[in-house]
């Protein structure tokens, strides 16, 4: 494993995208960045630019207008990338299952690597999920070599 790849796993950069969620999971992701949980301890930095990101954190169910935006964003994140669906709605549509403008979970549009359950997902669970995703990222690189 090269130095660059190793350091990428040690310091994953995150892109947060809000589909059409209720804000519950979004503020929990923001809460992860604030002093009490402070994910910057792990080198995670929240990025506004998809081309800088390694990990895509997605909240909320996919609706008909954001599906296109989501596909765009996914195409822009450089390989190898990890997609994390945060919260029940992002995993399967959850309570919005019979809303007409909702397509369902994120996996209807793009492949998802890790699902974080919970409504809203607790900050601890989000940290757990990102750690799990990084294990997958490390193993992906191992296969490549």
């Amino acid at each position: 494993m090269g130095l660059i790849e190793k350091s990428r796993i040690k310091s994953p950069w995150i892109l947060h995208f809000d589909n059409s969620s209720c804000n519950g999971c979004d503020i929990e992701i923001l809460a992860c960045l604030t002093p009490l949980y402070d994910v910057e301890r792990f080198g995670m930095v929240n990025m506004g630019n998809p081309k800088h990101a390694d990990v895509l954190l997605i909240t909320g169910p996919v609706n008909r207008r954001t599906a296109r935006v989501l596909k765009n964003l996914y195409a822009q994140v450089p390989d190898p990338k990890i997609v994390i669906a945060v919260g029940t709605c992002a995993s399967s549509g959850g309570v919005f299952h019979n809303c007409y403008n909702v397509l369902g979970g994120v996996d209807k549009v793009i492949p998802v690597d890790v699902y974080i359950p919970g409504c809203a997902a607790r900050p601890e669970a989000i940290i757990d999920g990102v750690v799990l995703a990084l294990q997958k990222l490390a193993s992906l690189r191992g296969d490549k070599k």
Partner: protein
Amino acid sequence: MPWMLPTILKNFFGGPATRLYPAEVREPFEHARGQVSFNEDKCTLCGTCVRRCPAEALSQDKEKNELVFYPARCIICEVCADICPRKAIDLIYKWRLPFYTKPVEVYKPRGKESGKAEKEAAATREPALNN
């Protein structure tokens, strides 16, 4: 900026505010809603929880005697635990861990067999509340 000084000094000399999560796990509160757990021994597959679940996270198959639970759909609203007439559903405070693929949990309720004898014994007792 001078008005910020007391806070800055306090933070400088005080301990860290951060909860060092994976190293030190803070236990959630006693009645926190973490995840749903089923008791196969008590469940009679009456279907109340399946009908009342707002997220359709539960389904049942009476012929195969199966109660199916989809954790990825559950919104942890506690409705099923509240309305279960046999108190077969409980909420435990620990949150559910993330997963790579969506799990499907199948339960084989045995409440009917064990419940029958008990029911006959308690036939004179007040019937279970069910709204």
